[in-house]
């Protein structure tokens, strides 16, 4: 307590006022964010309870909760979540690693880059879901297809992002390296890679979302397990409670995965 007093004494009145204002603002933002969520949920529940909206079509918060409880007690909740998580993480890791390796190879030879560029552009623009049927026929309706889908969705964007970072390394710094007689491997290890750590981390952030998209798309097509399966199944049998519950779980899952990567970013920048 005493320490705290001492440290605030160092600041001017104006600065303390400034800090207080900032704190107030942060609190206001958090308060409103929670408030909006709470208000929407309440409104939804009230509208459904008074039968202003049809809860068979629109579902309602209480119905979603009871659906989740029954999913939990039947053991389906965790098994499906785990399926989706495992597929997403596998796709994410494979996509990022492969993306980095391919980007490095392309960076290595500018000739390769020139040859391969139009293919990359087309593959990037192509909606990967269109490849779904091909993948299922080739790989079979199982986890393999889903992971491949996640990989496809994340790998191209990884290549483009990382390659962009690699080729944007300042020419003068490369000249500096060369003036010391650096080899291409040294230029890569000592300059290109370390100067692109933040590019790689931002690619990780994008990729988490991308591979989740790939996984859900895959689960829609394969329809065996996972959150995507729950959602598509709920739609087929017209159980909107199940669809809504699935979407909610997915939102939480997406947030958790993103938070993990953001945490890695935080740890890295703190170390720096």
């Amino acid at each position: 307590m005493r320490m705290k007093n001492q440290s605030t004494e160092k600041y001017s009145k104006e600065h303390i006022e400034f800090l207080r204002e900032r704190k107030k603002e942060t609190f206001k933002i958090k308060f409103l964010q929670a408030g909006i969520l709470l208000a929407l949920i309440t409104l939804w529940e009230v509208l459904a309870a008074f039968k202003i909206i049809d809860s068979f079509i629109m579902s309602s918060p209480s119905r979603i909760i009871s659906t989740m409880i029954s999913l939990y007690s039947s053991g389906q909740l965790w098994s499906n979540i785990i399926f989706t998580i495992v597929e997403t993480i596998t796709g994410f890791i494979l996509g990022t690693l492969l993306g980095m390796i391919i980007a490095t190879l392309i960076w290595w030879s500018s000739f390769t880059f020139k040859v391969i560029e139009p293919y990359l552009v087309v593959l990037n623009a192509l909606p990967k879901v269109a490849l779904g049927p091909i993948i299922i026929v080739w790989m079979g309706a199982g986890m393999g297809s889903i992971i491949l889908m996640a990989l496809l969705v994340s790998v191209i964007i990884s290549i483009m992002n990382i390659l962009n970072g690699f080729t944007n390394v300042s020419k003068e710094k490369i000249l500096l390296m060369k003036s010391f007689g650096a080899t291409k491997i040294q230029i890569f290890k000592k300059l290109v890679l370390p100067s692109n750590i933040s590019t790689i981390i931002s690619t990780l952030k994008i990729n988490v979302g991308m591979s989740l998209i790939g996984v859900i798309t895959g689960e829609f097509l394969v329809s065996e397990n996972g959150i995507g399966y729950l959602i598509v199944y709920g739609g087929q049998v017209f159980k909107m409670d199940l669809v809504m519950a699935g979407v909610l779980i997915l939102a939480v899952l997406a947030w958790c995965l993103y938070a993990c990567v953001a945490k890695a970013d935080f740890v890295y920048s703190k170390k720096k």
Partner: protein
Amino acid sequence: MKNKEKILMLKHLTMRYHTLKQETLAVKDITLDIYSEEFLSIVGPSGCGKSTVLSLISGLLSPSSGEVVITDRKKDLGKSLVGYMLQSDYLFEWRTIEQNIMLGLEIKKLLNEKSREYALKLLEKYELIKFKDHFPNQLSGGMRQKVALIRTLAVKPQILLLDEPFSALDYQTRITLASEVRKIIKTERKTAVLVTHDISEAITLSDRIAILSKRPSTIKRVLEVEFGSQNLSTKQKQRHEKFNDYFDVIWSELNENEKSKH
């Protein structure tokens, strides 16, 4: 200066650049001897290919014709003959100052206890040792450029190539740093080739000045700079009566270029 031995000879250097649209003759038939431990400046109109000459000396570019001969006294140091100092410091933000000055040694695989100590000694000698664990963004522009010089000196080059190393700095820093760099180069007994478009910088720093013509560059004139005393400060040199004479000579040589252009 003439009694010193030649360390670097440029023999009929010619350099052409090729693009799809055209072929540019950047440097034409440059012949120049550079003596050990002298400070030579190359001045010329902007875009005349001054930097090309440095790239040719360093071996980063190979000439279309002609050759660069470096006479090496100590053959075993062959790897570190020339060191480059560029327009900006290009320190790596993710490395500390100490790690930055070790970069050249790491690349050349010369990093050991002895070379590390030498590099740190340079840092100490030029009053930057207290920043060795700092990151580049914590240093001022002038200090950063000094670190860049030490990074170059750490690999013990015999010839230093300076490519407008002060042009990115503000006026005051430029003046102080330039004379400091000259002092460092003289103390370490290095040969220096400076490329600049700043006439007064060339006069105050150099022992000799080579004036280049506009593209295709050839040497128009080589000027000996002599102020009588070796130890005059930049300010003293600028106030010296000879300063204006040198300035006028270079100015008119460069302006002749301008006239012939129009």
